[in-house]
């Protein structure tokens, strides 16, 4: 480590967080945070909330503004101590700062604030990062890792950060994400894994679950756009095939240009579910039906995954099926 660099210790960061809250808690910390004078407000200007430790590993190229917005959205549903680790090129660099994200919920009188620690590091200091991030976790609450760093995957350093969390969430449809084989390896080692590509097809799966009732599906074809099936199509195939071993489930190109996304599901040749942005359409007898398939933003998908801190049977069966 270069002599000029400051020593970063978890205790110091925790003290800074404590100081931050003391400042935030003062009635004059902000106009919005002022005492409302009602019987319920007892002088505190902000409401501190925490339901987990959220560790977000990203590459330094990630847009800071967009990342901040993502965290702000996640905080509303999962108020947390967020630790953002930004990994950059170069050597021997490590820095940390603390701040709070606050918002005033609509119609409320007090701000809600969540604390945030941002650590910037080069890959060669990953071991130091782990030594800092570990003690920063809030005791007794879940520790979630959101992985969006291709740098970590490329360096084969995924397992170095796994001990920091109870669950790791990736998006295998993103370039630079860990592959199915690697995710399967994590499962085999007993880790809890979440994949946004799987989360993205929840609404489609729920619809198929309802439509397949009282049917005996023999042939199911999943059509996708573009040249190669995306992770979502692969997961859907695996979920259906693992759940319906008697049926023949195939994945095929629709012929339309695109990026591998699911475009239609054909069941027994007599029911075709067309997947359009935000909706699914199908015909049941004479009835044309449209079902809403809300377009999940990354934040919504993360929110959904953050709600599950346990082994996810359906997902693990599908992933095991793919990697078998």
């Amino acid at each position, binding site marked *: 480590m270069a002599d000029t660099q400051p020593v970063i210790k978890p205790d110091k960061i925790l003290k800074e967080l404590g100081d931050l809250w003391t400042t935030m808690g003062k009635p004059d910390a902000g106009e919005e945070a002022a005492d409302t004078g009602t*019987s*319920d407000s*007892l002088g505190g200007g902000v*409401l501190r*909330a925490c*339901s987990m430790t959220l560790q977000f590993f990203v590459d330094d190229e990630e847009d800071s503004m967009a990342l901040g917005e993502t965290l702000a959205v996640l905080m*509303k*549903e*999962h*108020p947390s101590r967020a630790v953002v680790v930004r990994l950059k090129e170069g050597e021997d660099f490590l820095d940390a700062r603390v701040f709070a994200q606050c918002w005033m*919920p609509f*119609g*409320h009188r007090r701000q809600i604030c969540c604390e945030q620690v941002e650590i910037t590091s080069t890959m060669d200091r990953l071991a130091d990062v782990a030594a800092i991030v570990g003690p920063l976790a809030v005791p007794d609450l879940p520790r979630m890792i959101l992985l969006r760093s291709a740098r970590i995957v490329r360096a084969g350093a995924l*397992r*170095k950060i*796994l*001990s920091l969390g*109870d669950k790791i969430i990736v998006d295998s449809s993103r370039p630079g994400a860990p592959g199915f084989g690697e995710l399967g390896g994590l499962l085999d080692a*007993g*880790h809890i894994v979440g994949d946004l590509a799987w989360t993205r097809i*929840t*609404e489609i*799966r*729920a*619809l*198929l*679950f*309802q*439509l*397949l*009732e009282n*049917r*005996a599906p023999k042939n199911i074809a999943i059509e996708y756009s573009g040249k190669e099936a995306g992770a979502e199509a692969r997961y859907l195939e695996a*979920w*259906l095939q*693992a*759940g*319906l*071993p*008697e049926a023949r489930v195939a994945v095929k190109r629709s012929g339309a240009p695109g990026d591998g996304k699911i475009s239609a599901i054909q069941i027994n040749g007599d029911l075709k579910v067309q997947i359009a942005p*935000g*909706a699914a359409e199908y015909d*049941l*007898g*004479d*009835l*044309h*039906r*449209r*079902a*809403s398939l809300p377009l999940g933003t990354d934040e919504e998908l993360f*929110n*959904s995954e953050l709600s599950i801190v*346990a*082994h*996810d*049977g*359906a997902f*693990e*069966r599908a992933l095991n099926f793919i990697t078998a």
Partner: protein
Amino acid sequence: MAVYIYPLRVPSVTVSLMPVETLQDPLRFHRKTPPCAVVIYGANGDLTKRKLMPALYRLAYEGRLAPGFAVVGVSRTAMTNDEFREKMHDSVKRFLEDSPFDEDLWRSFAQGIFYQAGDVAQASSYEDLGKCLDEVQEARKTEGNVLFYLSTQPSQYAQIAEGLAGAKLNKDKGDGWRRIVIEKPFGRDLTSAGELNGRLQKCFQESEIYRIDHYLGKETVQNIMAFRFGNGIFEPLWNRTYIDHVQITAAESIGVEGRGAYYQEAGALRDMIQNHLLQVMATVAMEPASSFTSDAVRDERAKLLRAIRIMRPEQVADNAVAGQYGPGRSGSQMVEGFRSEKGVSPDSQTNTYAAVTFLVDNWRWAGVPFYIRSGKALPKRVSEIAIQFRTAPLAMFRKATAGAETVPNMLILRIQPEEGISLKFVSKRPGSGMQLRPVSMDFNYGSSFGERSPSAYETLLLDAITGDATLYTRQDMVMASWTAVQPILDYWSTQKFNMPNYAAGTWGPESSDAMLARWGHTWRRP
């Protein structure tokens, strides 16, 4: 490097399940809803427009309804299916809360909306409805399942049930189910409630009758059970040894707002306390159920309601207060008195405010007063349950402070607005000396969970469709709550009150404060 080992791995696919069940994903999928037709009587009314249709559309939006789903609106007004759909389109668009309106989805949803004009007094209207339901079943594949929702005047409930039974619509010809939902009030008093139940039960089995109390559908009321029975630390304190008294408040800042004619016949005791607030009290005070099943939970609620001590006539004056608002100020706005409302008699004796002290005769609650109050034109809109604990047995900080240590701990369960839970306790002020001050530890439901909470009607409609009656009121519960308030109604009917006795914008009549003062308590100002 430490590696987490989770010994419990997910088992492979269980082959004994039905094929489609192997696709079940309990972590992510909602419970499955059966196909059905919802028949709404009073389809042209306010409740249908403001609550029922927006709730059904929202359920469709969330994919919670089965593909075989239909709505049949029934009312006297002549209308075509298309005219009814158009009307509902406008209502849903206007009254849908916290959700986007998707025109394409509406078009698909509206294909399943039908309308049948009919007079509930005419037997032929039920035969017409039967034919309509046959057609709907054929077209929409509803499999003979029908939920009748009576959003009409309460005086028509029994008549409609009898009409449905007369046309044999209370039973499906095949394997389908039939259920009937009615809105409160369930009778005007103990006698009429008994009569209504008797007539309903001649047409439908008790398990097919869903008496809706939308208060029980509120997330925070359901959360009372989660709070009490999902945590280990509160239940040991939940008894007469540690709890001093309980206050349940449902305050409205507005007056009767044009509903004077209806309200004059009802009053706060009938409109709020007999149903909503006694159900809330039962939820707060009931014993833990052996399981979270409809009958087990309702058995415990019913037991609690039956344990409420019945007042003797000479006890009513000390334990129940009737109030009526006169002119006053709500914020910066002048409010007329209740008697100046349209449709209200100038010498009306109707209670727009009622407060009652209930005692529960069981081991857990013996001697603990439950104060319940509800009123119109009070200073703010708030519904909450305040549980006041007994003070610390030894006031060891008395000399060092200005008496703050005698502030009792309070647990506040807020139902609306800003749903949440607060625990009040005292803490040392920073600095030298031993100065204590009360502080609040807050859990805010809305900000802790960013997810949109379903409306009470979404929850309750979905429960009725799936056959879950946990949040619905059973006949014995209705009778028990009427039994508890009947002595008050009887006594008040013999009295001539000096009304109005509180000004709009105040916290009710002074006699209400005096009622608590007799026990050495004061009302909390929410």
